[in-house]
């Protein structure tokens, strides 16, 4: 039966992961995501799972790599500086084509930055923080409900496409409480004939590896991987459109910034400004089609982000710079007020971008 509960965003991720069949969690403490580890530490031993606090983010992502290679649904979670440390492992996981779920509850950067919410790891998540040609599926929840639903979706997509799904959340959604519903839907699972299980004398040995010393072989591996990525781009982009039917202006925002932006859109509508919102739910694959369509419809875009302007580059790219795009952003843990976003919408209406 569906269950309605009041939960913190971070706890919703942990509970959803368990419901998705994840029984292995490897992590290292960092604010503001610690509730995920705390939840796992409490629950896993009771359900025959494994919670292990590693000696570092580097060790924890390599434990994830091992567990993923062993064929398990496995996850880790961290926050911005910790994700930088995990990036080496993310590259190996991508190069070895094994599935994993990684959560980044973002805080302000660069460096040690701060512990307040931020969206300044957009580039790192969507353009690849580690070395080499690779992609991750990047899911951006905007509510505690989505922290749960996108975690389940993330595990499914990771297994389906043999890649990392990253939940790109932020300190606000991680820490805030909202009522959410856990539905009793069946979680999809996939066969893993490539997994390390021991040959049992029944088959040739399985090898999980990202090393290809012959350049033509490495090229072919990368090409094959990008063929798979193409399928992801074609089929898995998710976004929400709000009041876009008759919109003359379009606000683009994801995650917690979209919640503020939505309020500003409602306020602008009351002033008679025809504005709507596109909220990317997947940041990779980016909702290209929605942006391309909007570029034919509206007079201009306002990009709202908690950083110095990162997603705005993709907005310009996928609207092919057909219409002007302005940036309304705060960073370092500051969050724009609905009034600040409204002011940017008013300016857009006046042609000021």
């Amino acid at each position, binding site marked *: 039966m569906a269950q309605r509960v009041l939960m913190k965003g971070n706890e919703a991720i942990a509970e959803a992961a368990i419901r998705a069949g994840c029984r292995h969690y490897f992590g290292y403490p960092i604010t503001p995501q610690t509730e995920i580890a705390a939840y796992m530490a409490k629950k896993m031993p009771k359900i025959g799972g494994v919670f292990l606090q590693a000696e570092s983010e580097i060790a924890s992502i390599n434990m994830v790599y091992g567990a993923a290679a*062993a064929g398990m649904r496995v996850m880790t979670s961290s926050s911005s500086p910790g994700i930088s440390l995990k990036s080496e492992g993310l590259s190996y996981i991508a190069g070895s084509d094994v599935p994993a779920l990684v959560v980044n509850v973002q805080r302000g950067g660069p460096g040690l930055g701060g512990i307040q919410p931020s969206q300044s790891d957009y580039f790192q998540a969507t353009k690849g923080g580690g070395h080499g040609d690779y992609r991750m599926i990047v899911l951006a929840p905007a509510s505690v409900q989505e922290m749960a639903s996108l975690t389940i979706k993330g595990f499914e997509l990771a297994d389906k496409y043999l890649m990392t799904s990253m939940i790109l959340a932020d300190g606000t959604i991680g820490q805030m409480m909202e009522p959410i519903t856990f539905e009793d839907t069946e979680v999809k699972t996939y066969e893993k004939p490539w997994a390390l299980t021991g040959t049992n004398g029944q088959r040739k040995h399985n*090898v999980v590896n990202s090393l290809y010393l012959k350049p033509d072989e490495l090229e072919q591996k990368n090409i094959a991987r990008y063929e798979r990525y193409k399928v992801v781009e074609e089929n898995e982009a998710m976004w929400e459109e709000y009041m876009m039917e008759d919109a003359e202006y379009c606000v683009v925002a994801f995650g917690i910034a979209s919640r503020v932006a939505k309020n500003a859109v409602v306020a602008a509508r009351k002033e008679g400004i025809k504005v709507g919102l596109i909220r990317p739910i997947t940041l990779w694959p980016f909702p290209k089609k929605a942006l391309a369509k909007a570029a034919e419809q509206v007079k201009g875009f306002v990009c709202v982000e908690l950083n110095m302007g990162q997603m705005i580059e993709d907005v310009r790219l996928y609207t092919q710079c057909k219409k002007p795009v302005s940036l309304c952003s705060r960073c370092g843990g500051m969050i724009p007020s609905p009034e600040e976003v409204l002011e940017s919408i008013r300016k857009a209406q006046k042609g000021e971008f």
Partner: protein
Amino acid sequence: MATVFQKPKSLSDAPLHYCPGCPHGIIHRLVAEAIDELGIEGKTIGVAPVGCAVMAYDYFTVDMIEAAHGRAPATATGIKRCRPENIVFTYQGDGDLASIGMAETVHAAARNENITVIFVNNAIYGMTGGQMAPTSLPGQVTQTSPYGRDVNHCGWPIKVCEMLSTLEGPEYITRVAVNNVKNVLNAKKAIKKAFQNQMEGKGFSLVEVVSACPTNWGMTPQKALQWVESDMLPYYPIGVYKDRSAAKEEAK
């Protein structure tokens, strides 16, 4: 005709890429023989390092994974915690285990992670062409210590067995060598015991194998083995540094 000697089943037919005179071939063989004799080929999962043994995943017929540099004990931990019924081993060099991967090594030992670690110490980075290792001897000439390792400038070589044996965690810490027949036979016994310990659930077992690198030491294979005896073993003495079960037996 009776077969009196053959390749272990756990070694594949792939030609080894190691330099002439390199003892990696011997150590691979000892690991494979131990796996065969214990009858665990079908349930063993190996973790290859970054270093000369990077392609070990081609040489063993068991399931294999290639870890990032130094991270083999963490990767092995991930596998073992998922599949405790399998036998998991890492095969690592000195740069991998004692420099970049020191944290992973120490913490896997401290957790008494039920894995087997084969640590090949040849006092140099072989694959990258002979740079100073965390285990290069004082005064040892390498590409990055061209005037000899100056301990006042870059510190002292690390004695891994001595250090790990101070921890409460690990079950079995031992150092062996492969520079003569007697030592090779003893190395085999230690490696087999390190796997047996895991089968019996005893925990973290590390076998340090003092090895040679004729190519990067700039010596003939024979001279290199002599140098192991004359220079390496006085600094890295052979011996059992920790054996919890044996100590318990003795206490009885």
